């Protein structure tokens, strides 16, 4: 059944919890409602389940206004799995699931064999058949959650609403429950609306997402459209990295802790990092955290160091993915290098495509800039040019300063720029590391 939500609002005292929420859910779709705490997710679900009365707007289910359903009709159309599934009374699992048949029974009617059969199926679908005789109070959180979903299924609803169905469960159960819910929507044609707090699970399981913030819809649509770094940063006030799921390609959100604020307060010292293939992400972060201004380049779009630079808000000279460094980008890079106070050459893989980056480092060294060349392991293994790469690297090493590892780099920089940023912390840190 189609759910249509028009300009829905809900006020709690003077607090506007929902404000002009409009979206619709097509039959058989699994829609996730996401948003930070207090964004109105649960309230929205409660208004949809008619536990709360909206102060404005309308909800229709299958074309019929929500307010016009009788309580029993509504329970036959829509089942709700709330966040709190704790039941303090020693009903057996079967008794609890049997309560899902209540909306179908008259006051003087008792459950028929058909009702028991429906309950049996609901228990089977949710994998609870073996729990039938157990007391609901003895079950684990995950088992109880499944029993409550079984009860919802016993209502034979067209619409299923779930409020954080996985909030108390470990990841195995989370996946199991959401797998079940997704199967119900795709196989049984159930229309599902679920409040979810885990963005990755939401992205993976839901057909569509609704992102709420302060009672309003910020974005709505396919997970790839809704879960952009911009949207999440705006709503959750934290910096994240959105990458495709390594196997399925759905958006995956990684947190970037400690990157909420920009920390470029010592602009006098700018360090340019030449990295690639994951060799420079950590260095860029550490330098930035120490208070340096950091630039990077040339990096291919999509390279993990490129992602890191972007996530850290570091200006970067970007090249198209899988393309060699072009002359224009090389010039841009040289321009950046010319104004930097120091250059760090990370342990980049040496390929024909990025030899220009080595040229740039050599140029900087020739101009008298301090060039720190990190070499923890011999460069032989990361040379894919069959010789020229290493040859060029040796020249850079001769002109610049060879550095054993990151710790040594930080110490060298600390000595070179004693007044830059949070230098003192750095030297302490590095000395401690050296002492060890």
């Amino acid at each position, binding site marked *: 059944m189609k759910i249509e939500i028009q300009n829905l609002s809900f006020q709690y005292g003077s607090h506007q919890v929902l404000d002009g929420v409009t979206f619709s859910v097509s039959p058989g779709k699994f829609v996730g409602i996401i948003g930070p705490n207090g964004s109105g997710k649960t309230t929205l679900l*409660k208004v949809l*389940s*008619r*536990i709360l009365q909206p102060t404005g707007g309308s909800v229709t289910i299958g074309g019929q206004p929500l307010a016009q359903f009788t*309580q*029993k009709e*509504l*329970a*036959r159309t*829509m*089942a*709700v799995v*709330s966040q*709190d599934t704790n*039941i*303090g*009374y*020693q*009903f*057996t699992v079967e*008794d*609890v699931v049997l*309560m*899902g048949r*209540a*909306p179908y*029974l008259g*006051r*003087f009617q008792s459950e028929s064999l058909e009702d028991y059969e429906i309950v049996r199926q609901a228990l089977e679908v949710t994998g609870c058949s073996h729990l039938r005789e157990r007391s609901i*109070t003895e079950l684990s959180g995950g088992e109880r959650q499944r029993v409550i979903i079984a*009860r919802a299924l016993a*209502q034979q609803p067209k619409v299923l609403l779930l409020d954080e169905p996985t909030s108390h469960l470990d990841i195995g159960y989370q996946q199991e429950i959401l797998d079940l819910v997704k199967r119900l929507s795709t196989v049984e044609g159930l229309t599902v609306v679920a409040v979810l707090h885990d963005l990755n699970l939401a992205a993976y399981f839901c057909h569509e997402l609704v992102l709420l913030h302060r009672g309003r819809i910020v974005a709505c649509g396919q997970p790839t459209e809704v879960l952009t770094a911009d949207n999440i940063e705006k709503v959750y006030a934290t910096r994240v990295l959105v990458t495709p799921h390594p196997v399925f390609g759905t958006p995956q959100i990684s947190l970037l802790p400690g990157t909420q604020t920009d920390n470029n307060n010592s602009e006098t010292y700018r360090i340019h990092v030449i990295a690639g293939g994951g060799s420079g992400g950590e260095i860029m972060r550490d330098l930035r955290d120490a208070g340096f201004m950091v630039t990077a380049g040339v990096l291919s779009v999509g390279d993990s160091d490129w992602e890191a630079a972007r996530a850290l808000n570091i200006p970067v000279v970007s090249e198209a993915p899988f393309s060699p460094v072009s002359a224009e980008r090389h010039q841009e890079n040289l321009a950046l290098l010319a104004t930097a106070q120091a250059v760090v050459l990370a342990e980049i893989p040496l390929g024909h495509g990025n030899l220009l980056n080595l040229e740039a480092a050599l140029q900087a060294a020739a101009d008298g800039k301090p060039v720190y060349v990190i070499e923890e392991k011999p460069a032989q293994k990361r040379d894919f040019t069959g010789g020229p790469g290493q040859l060029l690297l040796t020249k850079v090493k001769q002109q610049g300063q060879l550095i054993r590892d990151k710790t040594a780099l930080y110490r060298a920089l600390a000595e070179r720029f004693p007044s830059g940023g949070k230098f003192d912390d750095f030297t302490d840190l590095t000395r401690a590391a050296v002492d060890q």
Partner: protein
Amino acid sequence: MKRNQKFLLYTILLAVLVVSVIMATAIGAVAIPPQETFQIIISRLTGLWQNSEIPSTTKAIIWNLRLPRVLLGVLVGASLALAGVSFQGLLRNPLADPFTIGVSSGAAVGATIAILVQQTYHTGFTQMIPFSAFAGALIAMFFIYNLARIGGQVPVVTLLLAGVVVSSFLSAVISLLMVFAGEDMQGIFFWLSGGLLMRSWSEILFVLPYLLIGSVILFTYARDLNVLLMGEEAALTLGVNVERTKKVLLVTASMITAAAVSVSGMIGFVGLIIPHAVRMITGPDHRVLLPASALVGASFLVWADVVARTVMIPKEIPVGIITAFVGAPFFIYLLRKKKSEIRL
């Protein structure tokens, strides 16, 4: 519970009740053999099995004095237990009983006033105490209900609080009235302690309709009571009209309580412990719990009354004292035995 388990349970409980009634009628200051008692009752009811050897005084003792008293015990015990189950389920609170909600305090005030008026003006209206008590109970219920109501809804917590507050206020009123009562204090005290002394068939006819109609209503709402135990929001989504159900159950259970209290005074603990004890056997399903509690409550009060009237012959102890003496330790036993598991 399985169908055959339920059948067995009801059979046992019913048999226990019937035997209790006959035994309790037979026991007394004048001992009458149980089979003779049984014969008198049967012959009186059906006109058959007459026995002219039994003296008419014995027949009168059985039919006019003891049987009404025992049967009133049955009705009051069943009423209090039913009301207790309903309140505990409705309020989802294991400490709720017919007295928590304050209805009985209203009855007590009504009865106290009636006793004072009767002693002062010697009205010929013998049924004044139950009627006045009943009126007091209804007024209290109406008052508490409206006090607890917030915008058409009756939240459980406000209801409990309103009940407790009104109860303690009315207790103060009773204490004040007792100060003025002087020599009538013992009458009031006896009524407040609860008892079935000097009750006749007319009290039975007074209570019976409330118990019959009330239990029919409660039984038809048994499934809703079960669903309510899932929480009010869950009950809504399972198709229960929560506010209406609460109102119906509240009024019904209060009426049953009011009727019972107005003829028997304040008999405590029956409505509290019987539901708990029965729930341990039947589980929380109200479709079994309600009838089973009614049967157990009835038998329990019948035996409590036997003790009350025989333990200190010729003196009588108010039965409320017996139920408290038995009930409180039993409740403590349940609490210790099940510890954390005292739940509905």
